[in-house]
């Protein structure tokens, strides 16, 4: 083999080594940039979440600290045993719960045995299109509480419950439902339209999740979870706690 051939081969090897070196450097830089992209995405996620959380919020009349700071609202009664119900006005099982236990709970309230606390949630916000009916309805319930009509208005919301997957009830309809239970004041209509208590509902959501509530309806009697919240089980639990 000639010396020229050796020289050529050596030159080519050097060129290839340099090219491989360049490639490695570039690969490293690309990886660093991509890793930064992922880190920045994570930081953006956290920042967006933080910015969405209101620093303060308005709470409706009758708000209580059962289950967390301003996490509930007194629906009825002032008896010694506290019955807490986590509910979503879009959830069919919550409507069934309300239908099957309303008489029992009314009687327990009339007998001055219980204090009934509601935690109106927006867990099913995604289940309407446009999203957000659960939170709007819960906020409207807060408006009703201001006029002392929470349980009546809540019953009306369940009686007129829209189907999951539907658009939900619009604000006009939410206001209209207040009429038969005595919510005729312009302040109620304005409160519903403004979504005055939406941020409060967000607080109820957070406090519920923090407590480990992942579904509706969830019922506690004096802080004890009732696995099967039937009328009979509720009565038994209240009797046991009295």
């Amino acid at each position, binding site marked *: 083999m000639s010396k020229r051939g050796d020289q050529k081969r050596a030159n080519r090897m050097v060129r290839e080594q340099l090219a491989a070196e360049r490639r490695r450097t570039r690969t490293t830089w690309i990886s660093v*940039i*991509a890793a930064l*992209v*992922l880190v920045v*995405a994570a930081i953006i*996620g956290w920042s967006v*979440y933080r910015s969405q*959380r209101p620093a303060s919020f308005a709470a409706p009349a009758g708000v209580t600290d059962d289950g967390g700071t301003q996490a509930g609202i007194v629906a009825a009664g002032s008896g010694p045993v506290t019955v807490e119900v986590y509910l979503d006005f879009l959830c069919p099982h919550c409507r069934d719960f309300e239908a099957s236990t309303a008489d029992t709970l009314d009687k327990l309230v009339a007998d001055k045995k219980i204090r009934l606390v509601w935690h109106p949630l927006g867990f099913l916000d*995604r289940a309407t299109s446009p999203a957000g009916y659960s939170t709007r309805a819960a906020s409207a319930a807060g408006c009703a509480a201001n006029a002392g009509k929470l349980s009546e208005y809540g019953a009306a919301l369940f009686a007129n419950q829209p189907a999951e997957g539907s658009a939900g009830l619009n604000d006009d309809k939410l206001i209209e439902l207040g009429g038969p239970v005595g919510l005729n004041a312009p302040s109620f209509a304005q409160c519903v339209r403004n979504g005055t208590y939406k941020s409060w509902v967000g607080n109820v959501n957070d406090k519920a999740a923090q407590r480990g509530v992942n579904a509706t309806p969830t019922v506690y009697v004096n802080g004890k979870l009732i696995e099967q919240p039937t009328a009979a089980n509720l009565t038994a639990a209240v009797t046991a706690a009295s």
Partner: protein
Amino acid sequence: MDGVGETRWEGIQPWLSVAARLILAVIWIAAGASKIGDLAASGRAVNAYRLLPYDLAVFLGAVLPFLEIALGVLLLLGLATRLAASVSAVLLATYIGGISSVWVRGLRIDCGCFGGGGDLAAGQQPQYFSETIRDIALLALAGFLAVFARSRFSLDGRLLDGGHHR
């Protein structure tokens, strides 16, 4: 391997890899996009697995959707393919572990993979089997891509091989 077989594989592999890249990219972007609209709900979905302290679940719920979208965009562009595929594989393995853990403990939840989440209502059936199979299939794709990161129509190819579509 004989010369001819190797050449054939070298011809096919970049096409297989670009397919894997695009499938993963679409899944990540869809999964992330379905959750960014309600980050509080995303946190609750993580919390429903009952694996992490509440505050950490909320943090992951806020961060994961954006991470998923960023991974999807990297894969779509074919930028840092090996890194993006490796991170995808780790994330998918974590998801598989999470769902399996819920399954084994007999909990009944919505995985919240594409939004939603939380405990299932009475009468709703968990989908752990199909969710696990889906994630294992995606994990296989991510693993393949991490090993065979060279693909057609990638930024990596342009930046590293000077415009050769490899």
